[in-house]
Protein backbone atom coordinates (compact mmCIF):
# COMPACT_ATOMS: atom_id res chain seq x y z
CA UNK A 1 0.00 0.00 0.00
CA UNK A 2 1.97 2.84 -1.28
CA UNK A 3 -0.47 5.50 -0.23
CA UNK A 4 0.87 8.73 1.14
CA UNK A 5 0.13 8.87 4.85
CA UNK A 6 -0.19 12.62 5.02
CA UNK A 7 -3.68 13.64 4.22
CA UNK A 8 -4.89 17.11 4.88
CA UNK A 9 -8.36 17.29 6.23
CA UNK A 10 -10.36 20.36 7.14
CA UNK A 11 -12.06 20.20 10.56
CA UNK A 12 -15.82 19.77 10.70
CA UNK A 13 -17.68 23.06 10.77
CA UNK A 14 -18.43 24.33 14.25
CA UNK A 15 -22.13 24.49 14.94
CA UNK A 16 -23.54 27.39 16.90
CA UNK A 17 -23.91 26.36 20.50
CA UNK A 18 -27.49 25.82 21.50
CA UNK A 19 -29.29 24.47 24.49
CA UNK A 20 -29.57 20.68 24.49
CA UNK A 21 -33.20 19.84 23.80
CA UNK A 22 -34.51 16.32 24.07
CA UNK A 23 -37.45 15.46 21.79
CA UNK A 24 -39.66 15.16 24.89
CA UNK A 25 -38.81 18.65 26.06
CA UNK A 26 -39.64 19.99 22.64
CA UNK A 27 -43.05 18.31 22.80
CA UNK A 28 -43.73 19.94 26.17
CA UNK A 29 -42.79 23.32 24.74
CA UNK A 30 -45.38 22.91 21.97
CA UNK A 31 -47.98 21.58 24.38
CA UNK A 32 -47.61 24.62 26.62
CA UNK A 33 -48.48 26.94 23.76
CA UNK A 34 -51.76 25.14 23.07
CA UNK A 35 -54.46 26.99 25.06
CA UNK A 36 -57.20 24.40 24.57
CA UNK A 37 -54.92 21.59 25.69
CA UNK A 38 -54.10 23.58 28.81
CA UNK A 39 -57.82 23.98 29.55
CA UNK A 40 -58.22 20.19 29.19
CA UNK A 41 -55.24 19.57 31.44
CA UNK A 42 -56.70 21.95 34.05
CA UNK A 43 -59.97 20.05 34.04
CA UNK A 44 -58.10 16.76 34.43
CA UNK A 45 -56.01 18.21 37.27
CA UNK A 46 -59.17 19.54 38.91
CA UNK A 47 -60.72 16.06 38.94
CA UNK A 48 -57.50 14.44 40.11
CA UNK A 49 -57.23 16.86 43.04
CA UNK A 50 -60.89 16.35 43.81
CA UNK A 51 -60.40 12.60 43.94
CA UNK A 52 -57.31 12.82 46.13
CA UNK A 53 -58.79 15.30 48.61
CA UNK A 54 -62.37 13.97 48.54
CA UNK A 55 -62.62 13.43 52.33
CA UNK A 56 -61.69 17.07 52.95
CA UNK A 57 -63.84 18.51 50.18
CA UNK A 58 -67.04 16.55 50.70
CA UNK A 59 -69.21 18.15 53.43
CA UNK A 60 -70.91 14.86 54.21
CA UNK A 61 -70.25 11.15 53.98
CA UNK A 62 -71.36 9.32 50.85
CA UNK A 63 -73.98 7.21 52.51
CA UNK A 64 -75.23 9.46 55.26
CA UNK A 65 -78.97 9.42 54.92
CA UNK A 66 -80.71 12.57 56.02
CA UNK A 67 -84.31 11.50 55.54
CA UNK A 68 -85.97 14.77 56.57
CA UNK A 69 -83.99 16.48 53.80
CA UNK A 70 -84.93 14.16 50.92
CA UNK A 71 -84.94 15.54 47.38
CA UNK A 72 -83.84 19.02 48.37
CA UNK A 73 -82.99 21.27 45.40
CA UNK A 74 -79.50 22.81 45.26
CA UNK A 75 -79.04 25.35 48.05
CA UNK A 76 -76.26 26.87 50.12
CA UNK A 77 -76.48 23.89 52.46
CA UNK A 78 -76.68 21.17 49.78
CA UNK A 79 -74.78 22.56 46.81
CA UNK A 80 -75.99 19.93 44.35
CA UNK A 81 -79.18 19.09 46.24
CA UNK A 82 -80.04 15.74 47.83
CA UNK A 83 -81.38 12.47 46.46
CA UNK A 84 -84.35 10.35 47.50
CA UNK A 85 -82.48 9.02 50.55
CA UNK A 86 -81.47 12.50 51.62
CA UNK A 87 -77.80 11.92 50.64
CA UNK A 88 -75.77 14.96 49.66
CA UNK A 89 -75.21 14.72 45.90
CA UNK A 90 -72.18 17.03 45.96
CA UNK A 91 -70.36 14.69 48.34
CA UNK A 92 -71.27 11.69 46.23
CA UNK A 93 -70.09 13.34 43.01
CA UNK A 94 -66.78 14.27 44.67
CA UNK A 95 -66.23 10.72 45.87
CA UNK A 96 -67.39 9.46 42.48
CA UNK A 97 -64.31 11.08 40.93
CA UNK A 98 -62.19 8.59 42.88
CA UNK A 99 -64.02 5.64 41.37
CA UNK A 100 -64.14 6.94 37.80
CA UNK A 101 -60.53 8.09 37.66
CA UNK A 102 -59.23 4.90 39.23
CA UNK A 103 -61.16 2.78 36.76
CA UNK A 104 -60.08 5.03 33.88
CA UNK A 105 -56.38 4.99 34.73
CA UNK A 106 -56.05 1.35 35.74
CA UNK A 107 -58.01 0.09 32.75
CA UNK A 108 -55.87 2.15 30.37
CA UNK A 109 -52.58 1.17 32.01
CA UNK A 110 -53.61 -2.47 31.82
CA UNK A 111 -54.73 -2.40 28.21
CA UNK A 112 -51.77 -0.24 27.13
CA UNK A 113 -49.30 -2.65 28.75
CA UNK A 114 -50.81 -5.80 27.30
CA UNK A 115 -51.66 -4.16 23.97
CA UNK A 116 -48.16 -2.72 23.52
CA UNK A 117 -46.48 -6.00 24.29
CA UNK A 118 -48.66 -7.89 21.81
CA UNK A 119 -48.33 -5.10 19.24
CA UNK A 120 -44.54 -5.04 19.50
CA UNK A 121 -44.27 -8.80 19.13
CA UNK A 122 -46.62 -8.76 16.14
CA UNK A 123 -44.89 -5.85 14.44
CA UNK A 124 -41.30 -6.88 15.06
CA UNK A 125 -41.44 -10.60 14.44
CA UNK A 126 -44.12 -10.54 11.75
CA UNK A 127 -45.13 -13.76 9.98
CA UNK A 128 -47.18 -16.23 12.03
CA UNK A 129 -46.74 -14.28 15.28
CA UNK A 130 -48.28 -11.29 13.54
CA UNK A 131 -51.03 -13.34 11.94
CA UNK A 132 -52.16 -14.86 15.22
CA UNK A 133 -52.08 -11.63 17.21
CA UNK A 134 -53.63 -9.49 14.48
CA UNK A 135 -56.47 -11.90 13.85
CA UNK A 136 -57.13 -11.99 17.60
CA UNK A 137 -57.41 -8.19 17.55
CA UNK A 138 -59.72 -8.36 14.53
CA UNK A 139 -62.00 -10.78 16.32
CA UNK A 140 -62.18 -8.52 19.37
CA UNK A 141 -62.83 -5.45 17.24
CA UNK A 142 -65.61 -7.22 15.38
CA UNK A 143 -67.81 -6.83 18.48
CA UNK A 144 -69.16 -3.43 19.49
CA UNK A 145 -66.96 -2.61 22.46
CA UNK A 146 -69.73 -2.06 24.98
CA UNK A 147 -71.32 -5.40 24.01
CA UNK A 148 -67.99 -7.13 24.53
CA UNK A 149 -67.64 -5.42 27.90
CA UNK A 150 -71.14 -6.56 28.89
CA UNK A 151 -70.26 -10.10 27.83
CA UNK A 152 -67.05 -10.07 29.88
CA UNK A 153 -68.86 -8.71 32.93
CA UNK A 154 -71.62 -11.27 32.60
CA UNK A 155 -69.00 -14.00 32.64
CA UNK A 156 -67.08 -12.55 35.59
CA UNK A 157 -70.09 -11.26 37.51
CA UNK A 158 -71.13 -7.63 37.97
CA UNK A 159 -68.81 -5.58 40.18
CA UNK A 160 -66.64 -2.53 39.86
CA UNK A 161 -63.45 -4.62 39.66
CA UNK A 162 -64.84 -6.81 36.90
CA UNK A 163 -66.03 -3.75 35.00
CA UNK A 164 -62.46 -2.46 35.17
CA UNK A 165 -61.11 -5.75 33.82
CA UNK A 166 -63.71 -5.76 31.05
CA UNK A 167 -62.82 -2.22 29.99
CA UNK A 168 -59.12 -3.08 30.02
CA UNK A 169 -59.72 -6.13 27.82
CA UNK A 170 -61.84 -4.38 25.22
CA UNK A 171 -59.23 -1.64 24.79
CA UNK A 172 -56.31 -4.01 24.18
CA UNK A 173 -56.73 -4.24 20.39
CA UNK A 174 -56.80 -0.44 20.03
CA UNK A 175 -53.37 -0.16 21.60
CA UNK A 176 -52.11 -3.32 19.98
CA UNK A 177 -52.91 -2.25 16.44
CA UNK A 178 -51.53 1.22 17.01
CA UNK A 179 -48.22 -0.06 18.32
CA UNK A 180 -47.98 -2.75 15.68
CA UNK A 181 -48.24 -0.21 12.87
CA UNK A 182 -45.75 2.07 14.59
CA UNK A 183 -43.28 -0.78 15.09
CA UNK A 184 -43.64 -1.75 11.43
CA UNK A 185 -42.37 1.66 10.42
CA UNK A 186 -39.78 2.03 13.19
CA UNK A 187 -38.16 -1.32 12.48
CA UNK A 188 -37.38 -0.23 8.92
CA UNK A 189 -35.50 2.81 10.22
CA UNK A 190 -31.81 2.76 9.55
CA UNK A 191 -30.92 3.15 13.22
CA UNK A 192 -32.43 -0.26 13.87
CA UNK A 193 -30.13 -1.72 11.20
CA UNK A 194 -27.28 0.28 12.74
CA UNK A 195 -28.11 -1.17 16.16
CA UNK A 196 -28.02 -4.67 14.68
CA UNK A 197 -24.72 -3.82 13.04
CA UNK A 198 -23.10 -3.10 16.39
CA UNK A 199 -24.22 -6.51 17.65
CA UNK A 200 -27.25 -5.57 19.71
CA UNK A 201 -29.61 -8.41 20.62
CA UNK A 202 -33.24 -8.52 19.50
CA UNK A 203 -34.61 -8.05 23.01
CA UNK A 204 -32.41 -5.03 23.58
CA UNK A 205 -33.37 -3.52 20.22
CA UNK A 206 -37.05 -4.01 21.03
CA UNK A 207 -36.94 -2.38 24.43
CA UNK A 208 -34.29 0.29 24.01
CA UNK A 209 -34.92 1.34 20.41
CA UNK A 210 -38.30 0.21 19.14
CA UNK A 211 -40.36 0.80 22.29
CA UNK A 212 -39.15 4.34 23.12
CA UNK A 213 -39.67 5.36 19.51
CA UNK A 214 -43.20 3.98 19.61
CA UNK A 215 -44.03 5.71 22.90
CA UNK A 216 -45.71 8.86 21.60
CA UNK A 217 -48.79 7.20 20.11
CA UNK A 218 -49.21 5.19 23.34
CA UNK A 219 -49.24 8.38 25.38
CA UNK A 220 -51.65 10.15 23.06
CA UNK A 221 -53.95 7.16 22.71
CA UNK A 222 -53.67 6.57 26.46
CA UNK A 223 -54.98 10.00 27.42
CA UNK A 224 -57.85 9.69 24.95
CA UNK A 225 -58.59 6.15 26.13
CA UNK A 226 -58.99 7.33 29.74
CA UNK A 227 -61.93 9.42 28.55
CA UNK A 228 -63.49 6.43 26.80
CA UNK A 229 -62.85 4.21 29.79
CA UNK A 230 -64.60 6.65 32.14
CA UNK A 231 -67.55 6.73 29.79
CA UNK A 232 -67.62 2.95 29.52
CA UNK A 233 -67.38 2.56 33.30
CA UNK A 234 -70.33 4.94 33.66
CA UNK A 235 -72.27 2.99 31.04
CA UNK A 236 -71.63 -0.30 32.80
CA UNK A 237 -72.53 1.35 36.12
CA UNK A 238 -75.74 2.67 34.58
CA UNK A 239 -76.66 -0.80 33.39
CA UNK A 240 -76.01 -2.15 36.86
CA UNK A 241 -73.04 -4.20 35.66
CA UNK A 242 -70.29 -2.07 37.16
CA UNK A 243 -70.30 -0.30 40.48
CA UNK A 244 -73.10 -1.53 42.72
CA UNK A 245 -75.34 0.58 44.86
CA UNK A 246 -74.67 2.29 47.19
CA UNK A 247 -71.23 3.03 45.67
CA UNK A 248 -71.24 6.68 44.51
CA UNK A 249 -70.33 5.88 40.90
CA UNK A 250 -71.54 8.51 38.45
CA UNK A 251 -73.20 6.08 36.06
CA UNK A 252 -74.86 4.17 38.87
CA UNK A 253 -76.10 7.46 40.34
CA UNK A 254 -77.69 8.32 37.00
CA UNK A 255 -79.40 4.97 36.88
CA UNK A 256 -80.73 5.31 40.41
CA UNK A 257 -82.19 8.73 39.68
CA UNK A 258 -83.83 7.87 36.37
CA UNK A 259 -87.32 7.88 37.90
CA UNK A 260 -86.74 11.32 39.42
CA UNK A 261 -86.04 13.10 36.15
CA UNK A 262 -89.10 15.36 36.36
CA UNK A 263 -89.40 15.53 40.12
CA UNK A 264 -85.76 16.27 40.94
CA UNK A 265 -83.67 16.84 37.80
CA UNK A 266 -80.57 17.85 39.84
CA UNK A 267 -80.13 14.22 40.91
CA UNK A 268 -79.27 13.43 37.27
CA UNK A 269 -77.80 16.70 36.19
CA UNK A 270 -74.74 16.82 38.43
CA UNK A 271 -73.44 13.26 38.01
CA UNK A 272 -74.03 13.68 34.26
CA UNK A 273 -72.15 16.96 34.26
CA UNK A 274 -69.26 15.32 36.09
CA UNK A 275 -69.04 12.56 33.48
CA UNK A 276 -69.17 15.06 30.65
CA UNK A 277 -66.52 17.36 32.11
CA UNK A 278 -64.11 14.54 32.93
CA UNK A 279 -64.42 13.08 29.43
CA UNK A 280 -64.05 16.52 27.87
CA UNK A 281 -60.93 17.22 29.93
CA UNK A 282 -59.16 14.01 28.92
CA UNK A 283 -60.15 14.44 25.28
CA UNK A 284 -58.83 17.99 25.08
CA UNK A 285 -55.62 16.98 26.80
CA UNK A 286 -55.23 14.01 24.45
CA UNK A 287 -55.74 16.19 21.39
CA UNK A 288 -53.14 18.61 22.67
CA UNK A 289 -50.67 15.79 23.28
CA UNK A 290 -51.22 14.49 19.77
CA UNK A 291 -50.54 17.89 18.27
CA UNK A 292 -47.39 18.25 20.35
CA UNK A 293 -45.96 14.77 19.95
CA UNK A 294 -47.26 13.35 16.68
CA UNK A 295 -44.34 13.01 14.29
CA UNK A 296 -46.63 13.60 11.31
CA UNK A 297 -47.36 17.11 12.55
CA UNK A 298 -43.66 17.98 12.78
CA UNK A 299 -42.44 20.36 10.14
Amino acid at each position, binding site marked *: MGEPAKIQEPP*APVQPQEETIS*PWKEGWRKFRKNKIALVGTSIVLFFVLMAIFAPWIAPQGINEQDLPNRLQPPSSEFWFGTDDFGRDIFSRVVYGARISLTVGFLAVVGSAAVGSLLGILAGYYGRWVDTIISRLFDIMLAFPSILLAIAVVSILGPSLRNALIAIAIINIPNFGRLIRSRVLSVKEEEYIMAAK*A*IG*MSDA*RILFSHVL*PNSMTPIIVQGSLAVATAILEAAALGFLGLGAQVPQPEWGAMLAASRALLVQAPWTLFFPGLAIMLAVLGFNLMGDGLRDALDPKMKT
Partner: protein
Amino acid sequence: MNTQEKVLDVKGLKVSFFTDDGEVPAVDDIDFYVRKGEVLGIVGESGCGKSVTSLSVMGLIPSPPGKIVGGSIKLNDEELTKASEKRMRQIRGNDIAMIFQEPMTSLNPLFTIGNQLMDSMLIHKKGNKREAKKRAIDMLKLVGLPRAEELMNDYPHQLSGGMRQRVMIAMAMVCDPKLLIADEPTTALDVTIQAQILKLMKRLNVELNTAIMLITHDLGVVAETCERIVVMYAGKVVETGASIDIFKDPQHPYTRGLIQSVPDMRYKKQRLYSIPGNVPKPGSIKTGCRFADRCEFAFDRCRQEDPPLYHTAEGRSTRCFLFDEKEGAAHDSRATVES
Protein backbone atom coordinates in the same frame (compact mmCIF):
# COMPACT_ATOMS: atom_id res chain seq x y z
CA MET B 1 -0.65 -13.30 -2.56
CA ASN B 2 -0.31 -14.27 1.04
CA THR B 3 -3.48 -15.87 2.42
CA GLN B 4 -2.76 -14.80 5.99
CA GLU B 5 -3.06 -11.24 4.89
CA LYS B 6 -6.69 -11.57 3.94
CA VAL B 7 -9.07 -10.16 6.52
CA LEU B 8 -12.13 -11.14 4.57
CA ASP B 9 -12.30 -13.87 1.97
CA VAL B 10 -15.53 -14.42 0.09
CA LYS B 11 -15.74 -17.40 -2.23
CA GLY B 12 -18.60 -18.42 -4.47
CA LEU B 13 -21.14 -16.46 -2.47
CA LYS B 14 -24.70 -16.92 -3.65
CA VAL B 15 -27.58 -15.04 -2.09
CA SER B 16 -31.14 -15.52 -3.23
CA PHE B 17 -34.43 -13.98 -2.32
CA PHE B 18 -37.39 -16.32 -2.22
CA THR B 19 -40.40 -14.37 -3.41
CA ASP B 20 -43.85 -15.31 -4.66
CA ASP B 21 -42.41 -15.40 -8.18
CA GLY B 22 -39.81 -17.97 -7.16
CA GLU B 23 -36.12 -17.76 -6.35
CA VAL B 24 -34.45 -14.51 -7.37
CA PRO B 25 -30.66 -14.60 -7.21
CA ALA B 26 -29.39 -11.20 -6.03
CA VAL B 27 -25.76 -12.21 -5.74
CA ASP B 28 -24.58 -15.04 -7.93
CA ASP B 29 -21.29 -16.80 -7.29
CA ILE B 30 -19.04 -13.90 -6.38
CA ASP B 31 -15.44 -14.07 -5.18
CA PHE B 32 -13.43 -11.29 -3.62
CA TYR B 33 -11.17 -10.67 -0.69
CA VAL B 34 -10.05 -7.75 1.42
CA ARG B 35 -6.46 -7.62 2.59
CA LYS B 36 -5.36 -6.28 5.93
CA GLY B 37 -5.31 -2.49 5.95
CA GLU B 38 -6.43 -2.04 2.37
CA VAL B 39 -9.37 -0.17 0.92
CA LEU B 40 -11.41 -2.26 -1.48
CA GLY B 41 -14.01 -0.58 -3.62
CA ILE B 42 -17.10 -2.44 -4.75
CA VAL B 43 -18.63 -0.58 -7.67
CA GLY B 44 -21.81 -1.05 -9.60
CA GLU B 45 -25.18 0.40 -10.48
CA SER B 46 -28.20 0.25 -8.22
CA GLY B 47 -29.54 -3.27 -7.93
CA CYS B 48 -26.34 -5.07 -8.87
CA GLY B 49 -26.02 -6.74 -5.47
CA LYS B 50 -23.53 -4.48 -3.69
CA SER B 51 -25.61 -3.94 -0.60
CA VAL B 52 -26.73 -7.56 -0.47
CA THR B 53 -23.07 -8.54 -0.49
CA SER B 54 -22.26 -6.28 2.43
CA LEU B 55 -25.29 -7.39 4.42
CA SER B 56 -24.31 -11.04 3.82
CA VAL B 57 -20.91 -10.38 5.35
CA MET B 58 -22.63 -8.86 8.38
CA GLY B 59 -25.10 -11.75 8.53
CA LEU B 60 -27.94 -9.26 8.28
CA ILE B 61 -29.70 -10.42 5.14
CA PRO B 62 -33.40 -10.00 5.92
CA SER B 63 -34.52 -13.58 6.25
CA PRO B 64 -37.04 -14.49 5.02
CA PRO B 65 -37.11 -13.81 2.10
CA GLY B 66 -33.31 -13.62 1.72
CA LYS B 67 -30.96 -16.53 2.20
CA ILE B 68 -27.32 -17.33 1.59
CA VAL B 69 -27.63 -20.40 -0.61
CA GLY B 70 -24.00 -21.15 -1.22
CA GLY B 71 -20.36 -20.19 -0.90
CA SER B 72 -18.28 -19.13 2.02
CA ILE B 73 -17.45 -15.93 3.85
CA LYS B 74 -14.30 -16.16 5.90
CA LEU B 75 -13.23 -13.56 8.41
CA ASN B 76 -9.64 -14.36 9.42
CA ASP B 77 -10.28 -18.01 8.56
CA GLU B 78 -13.50 -18.15 10.56
CA GLU B 79 -16.48 -19.27 8.49
CA LEU B 80 -19.29 -16.75 8.92
CA THR B 81 -22.02 -18.42 6.89
CA LYS B 82 -22.19 -21.22 9.42
CA ALA B 83 -21.67 -19.12 12.55
CA SER B 84 -24.49 -19.00 15.10
CA GLU B 85 -26.53 -15.85 15.59
CA LYS B 86 -24.91 -15.46 19.00
CA ARG B 87 -21.42 -15.57 17.51
CA MET B 88 -22.47 -13.17 14.75
CA ARG B 89 -23.63 -10.69 17.38
CA GLN B 90 -20.18 -10.84 18.95
CA ILE B 91 -18.58 -10.25 15.56
CA ARG B 92 -20.84 -7.39 14.52
CA GLY B 93 -19.59 -4.11 15.83
CA ASN B 94 -16.50 -5.75 17.30
CA ASP B 95 -14.71 -7.35 14.34
CA ILE B 96 -16.76 -5.96 11.48
CA ALA B 97 -18.42 -2.59 11.70
CA MET B 98 -20.68 -0.94 9.22
CA ILE B 99 -21.71 2.56 8.29
CA PHE B 100 -24.77 3.36 6.27
CA GLN B 101 -25.91 5.60 3.48
CA GLU B 102 -28.28 7.85 5.40
CA PRO B 103 -26.58 9.60 8.29
CA MET B 104 -29.79 11.52 8.98
CA THR B 105 -31.64 8.37 10.02
CA SER B 106 -28.93 6.01 11.26
CA LEU B 107 -28.95 7.52 14.73
CA ASN B 108 -31.79 6.96 17.15
CA PRO B 109 -33.48 10.36 17.59
CA LEU B 110 -34.33 9.71 21.24
CA PHE B 111 -30.86 9.07 22.61
CA THR B 112 -27.84 11.30 22.98
CA ILE B 113 -24.76 10.86 20.81
CA GLY B 114 -22.74 9.74 23.82
CA ASN B 115 -25.30 7.16 24.77
CA GLN B 116 -25.22 5.59 21.33
CA LEU B 117 -21.44 5.72 21.06
CA MET B 118 -21.00 3.93 24.37
CA ASP B 119 -23.58 1.28 23.54
CA SER B 120 -21.28 -0.64 21.24
CA MET B 121 -18.48 -0.79 23.81
CA LEU B 122 -20.82 -1.82 26.59
CA ILE B 123 -22.37 -4.55 24.45
CA HIS B 124 -18.97 -5.97 23.62
CA LYS B 125 -17.81 -5.54 27.22
CA LYS B 126 -14.92 -3.27 26.33
CA GLY B 127 -14.78 -1.73 29.75
CA ASN B 128 -17.08 -0.01 32.21
CA LYS B 129 -19.16 3.10 31.68
CA ARG B 130 -16.40 5.52 32.62
CA GLU B 131 -13.87 3.94 30.27
CA ALA B 132 -16.46 3.78 27.51
CA LYS B 133 -17.19 7.46 27.96
CA LYS B 134 -13.53 8.38 27.77
CA ARG B 135 -13.05 6.27 24.66
CA ALA B 136 -16.18 7.73 23.07
CA ILE B 137 -14.87 11.27 23.58
CA ASP B 138 -11.50 10.26 22.14
CA MET B 139 -13.22 8.79 19.09
CA LEU B 140 -15.25 11.95 18.52
CA LYS B 141 -12.01 13.91 18.58
CA LEU B 142 -10.37 11.42 16.25
CA VAL B 143 -13.08 11.85 13.62
CA GLY B 144 -12.49 15.58 13.74
CA LEU B 145 -15.54 16.76 15.66
CA PRO B 146 -15.10 19.92 17.72
CA ARG B 147 -16.16 20.24 21.39
CA ALA B 148 -16.41 16.47 21.79
CA GLU B 149 -17.36 16.55 25.48
CA GLU B 150 -20.44 18.68 24.88
CA LEU B 151 -21.39 16.70 21.81
CA MET B 152 -21.79 13.62 23.99
CA ASN B 153 -24.96 15.14 25.48
CA ASP B 154 -26.40 16.33 22.19
CA TYR B 155 -29.26 14.71 20.34
CA PRO B 156 -28.90 13.67 16.69
CA HIS B 157 -31.28 16.36 15.41
CA GLN B 158 -28.86 19.03 16.62
CA LEU B 159 -26.17 17.82 14.21
CA SER B 160 -25.74 18.35 10.49
CA GLY B 161 -25.54 15.46 8.04
CA GLY B 162 -21.76 15.60 7.78
CA MET B 163 -21.38 15.66 11.55
CA ARG B 164 -23.75 12.73 11.94
CA GLN B 165 -21.78 10.70 9.42
CA ARG B 166 -18.64 11.46 11.44
CA VAL B 167 -20.47 10.26 14.54
CA MET B 168 -21.45 7.09 12.66
CA ILE B 169 -17.83 6.53 11.73
CA ALA B 170 -16.79 7.10 15.34
CA MET B 171 -19.45 4.60 16.42
CA ALA B 172 -18.18 2.06 13.92
CA MET B 173 -14.53 2.48 14.90
CA VAL B 174 -15.07 2.56 18.63
CA CYS B 175 -14.38 -1.15 19.15
CA ASP B 176 -11.41 -1.09 16.79
CA PRO B 177 -12.82 -3.44 14.12
CA LYS B 178 -10.65 -5.29 11.64
CA LEU B 179 -12.98 -4.48 8.80
CA LEU B 180 -15.20 -1.50 8.17
CA ILE B 181 -17.97 -1.88 5.64
CA ALA B 182 -19.09 1.47 4.28
CA ASP B 183 -22.28 1.19 2.26
CA GLU B 184 -22.48 4.33 0.12
CA PRO B 185 -21.26 6.48 3.00
CA THR B 186 -21.18 9.71 1.01
CA THR B 187 -24.18 9.37 -1.28
CA ALA B 188 -26.51 11.39 0.92
CA LEU B 189 -24.01 14.16 1.60
CA ASP B 190 -23.23 17.21 -0.46
CA VAL B 191 -20.04 17.29 -2.48
CA THR B 192 -17.80 19.29 -0.15
CA ILE B 193 -18.77 17.13 2.82
CA GLN B 194 -18.25 13.98 0.69
CA ALA B 195 -14.63 14.86 0.19
CA GLN B 196 -14.13 15.47 3.91
CA ILE B 197 -15.70 12.16 4.87
CA LEU B 198 -13.63 10.26 2.31
CA LYS B 199 -10.44 11.87 3.55
CA LEU B 200 -11.41 11.04 7.10
CA MET B 201 -11.99 7.40 6.19
CA LYS B 202 -8.71 7.24 4.33
CA ARG B 203 -6.92 8.79 7.31
CA LEU B 204 -8.44 6.28 9.74
CA ASN B 205 -7.50 3.50 7.33
CA VAL B 206 -3.88 4.65 7.37
CA GLU B 207 -3.66 5.53 11.08
CA LEU B 208 -5.55 2.61 12.56
CA ASN B 209 -4.80 0.10 9.80
CA THR B 210 -8.44 -0.92 9.50
CA ALA B 211 -9.41 -2.56 6.24
CA ILE B 212 -12.30 -0.85 4.49
CA MET B 213 -14.79 -2.29 2.08
CA LEU B 214 -16.22 0.75 0.33
CA ILE B 215 -19.43 0.19 -1.53
CA THR B 216 -20.36 2.85 -4.00
CA HIS B 217 -21.75 3.63 -7.42
CA ASP B 218 -19.53 6.69 -7.67
CA LEU B 219 -16.31 6.04 -9.56
CA GLY B 220 -14.88 9.34 -8.40
CA VAL B 221 -15.08 8.13 -4.82
CA VAL B 222 -13.31 4.91 -5.74
CA ALA B 223 -10.52 6.62 -7.64
CA GLU B 224 -9.66 8.76 -4.64
CA THR B 225 -9.69 6.16 -1.93
CA CYS B 226 -9.41 2.55 -3.10
CA GLU B 227 -6.39 0.45 -3.84
CA ARG B 228 -8.34 -2.31 -5.53
CA ILE B 229 -11.73 -2.41 -7.21
CA VAL B 230 -14.36 -5.07 -7.71
CA VAL B 231 -16.87 -4.12 -10.42
CA MET B 232 -20.21 -5.84 -10.06
CA TYR B 233 -22.97 -6.19 -12.59
CA ALA B 234 -26.31 -7.94 -12.09
CA GLY B 235 -25.11 -10.00 -9.15
CA LYS B 236 -21.78 -11.02 -10.66
CA VAL B 237 -18.23 -9.76 -10.46
CA VAL B 238 -17.34 -8.58 -13.96
CA GLU B 239 -13.90 -7.14 -13.35
CA THR B 240 -11.37 -6.88 -10.57
CA GLY B 241 -7.95 -5.31 -10.32
CA ALA B 242 -5.86 -2.52 -8.91
CA SER B 243 -7.75 0.74 -9.18
CA ILE B 244 -4.96 2.46 -11.12
CA ASP B 245 -4.93 -0.30 -13.74
CA ILE B 246 -8.67 -0.31 -14.12
CA PHE B 247 -8.88 3.43 -14.56
CA LYS B 248 -6.02 3.39 -17.05
CA ASP B 249 -7.23 0.41 -19.01
CA PRO B 250 -10.71 -0.82 -18.28
CA GLN B 251 -11.18 -4.25 -19.84
CA HIS B 252 -14.82 -5.22 -19.44
CA PRO B 253 -17.14 -3.24 -21.72
CA TYR B 254 -19.29 -2.42 -18.69
CA THR B 255 -16.40 -0.94 -16.75
CA ARG B 256 -15.45 1.02 -19.80
CA GLY B 257 -18.96 2.37 -20.06
CA LEU B 258 -18.94 3.34 -16.38
CA ILE B 259 -15.69 5.24 -16.69
CA GLN B 260 -16.89 7.02 -19.82
CA SER B 261 -20.01 8.18 -18.02
CA VAL B 262 -18.00 10.11 -15.44
CA PRO B 263 -18.01 13.78 -16.39
CA ASP B 264 -14.54 15.10 -17.17
CA MET B 265 -14.04 18.76 -16.40
CA ARG B 266 -11.23 19.10 -18.92
CA TYR B 267 -13.31 18.53 -22.01
CA LYS B 268 -16.48 20.22 -23.03
CA LYS B 269 -18.79 17.55 -24.35
CA GLN B 270 -22.24 18.00 -25.74
CA ARG B 271 -23.68 14.99 -24.02
CA LEU B 272 -22.36 12.77 -21.30
CA TYR B 273 -21.93 9.15 -22.33
CA SER B 274 -24.43 6.72 -20.88
CA ILE B 275 -24.65 2.97 -21.21
CA PRO B 276 -27.80 2.16 -23.21
CA GLY B 277 -30.51 0.19 -21.45
CA ASN B 278 -31.01 -0.69 -17.81
CA VAL B 279 -29.67 -3.20 -15.31
CA PRO B 280 -31.64 -6.38 -15.92
CA LYS B 281 -33.97 -7.39 -13.14
CA PRO B 282 -32.36 -10.07 -10.97
CA GLY B 283 -33.27 -13.49 -12.29
CA SER B 284 -34.50 -12.24 -15.67
CA ILE B 285 -31.45 -13.37 -17.66
CA LYS B 286 -31.16 -17.11 -17.84
CA THR B 287 -28.49 -17.73 -20.46
CA GLY B 288 -25.47 -15.92 -21.73
CA CYS B 289 -23.59 -12.91 -20.48
CA ARG B 290 -25.77 -10.63 -18.37
CA PHE B 291 -24.39 -7.56 -20.03
CA ALA B 292 -24.85 -8.84 -23.61
CA ASP B 293 -28.04 -6.86 -24.30
CA ARG B 294 -26.35 -3.56 -23.51
CA CYS B 295 -22.90 -4.41 -24.85
CA GLU B 296 -21.70 -2.91 -28.12
CA PHE B 297 -19.22 -5.78 -28.68
CA ALA B 298 -21.66 -8.62 -28.02
CA PHE B 299 -21.51 -11.54 -30.46
CA ASP B 300 -23.39 -14.83 -30.66
CA ARG B 301 -21.43 -16.67 -28.03
CA CYS B 302 -22.21 -13.92 -25.49
CA ARG B 303 -25.91 -14.70 -25.78
CA GLN B 304 -25.49 -18.45 -25.45
CA GLU B 305 -22.84 -19.01 -22.81
CA ASP B 306 -22.08 -17.39 -19.53
CA PRO B 307 -18.49 -16.11 -19.70
CA PRO B 308 -16.11 -17.21 -16.94
CA LEU B 309 -13.75 -14.85 -15.15
CA TYR B 310 -10.61 -14.66 -17.32
CA HIS B 311 -7.33 -13.95 -15.63
CA THR B 312 -5.95 -11.20 -17.84
CA ALA B 313 -2.95 -9.74 -16.04
CA GLU B 314 -1.24 -9.73 -12.67
CA GLY B 315 -4.03 -9.33 -10.12
CA ARG B 316 -6.65 -8.65 -12.75
CA SER B 317 -9.54 -10.62 -14.11
CA THR B 318 -12.45 -9.90 -16.41
CA ARG B 319 -15.66 -11.73 -17.16
CA CYS B 320 -15.77 -11.25 -20.92
CA PHE B 321 -15.31 -13.51 -23.96
CA LEU B 322 -13.20 -10.81 -25.57
CA PHE B 323 -10.44 -12.09 -23.32
CA ASP B 324 -10.87 -15.71 -24.27
CA GLU B 325 -7.74 -16.68 -26.16
CA LYS B 326 -9.71 -18.24 -28.99
CA GLU B 327 -11.99 -15.26 -29.39
CA GLY B 328 -9.29 -12.70 -28.74
CA ALA B 329 -7.90 -12.75 -32.26
CA ALA B 330 -11.25 -12.66 -34.00
CA HIS B 331 -12.63 -9.86 -31.89
CA ASP B 332 -9.62 -7.74 -31.23
CA SER B 333 -11.54 -4.69 -32.26
CA ARG B 334 -11.67 -3.50 -28.67
CA ALA B 335 -8.21 -2.02 -28.92
CA THR B 336 -9.35 0.31 -31.67
CA VAL B 337 -12.40 1.59 -29.89
CA GLU B 338 -12.09 5.13 -28.66
CA SER B 339 -11.32 5.47 -25.00
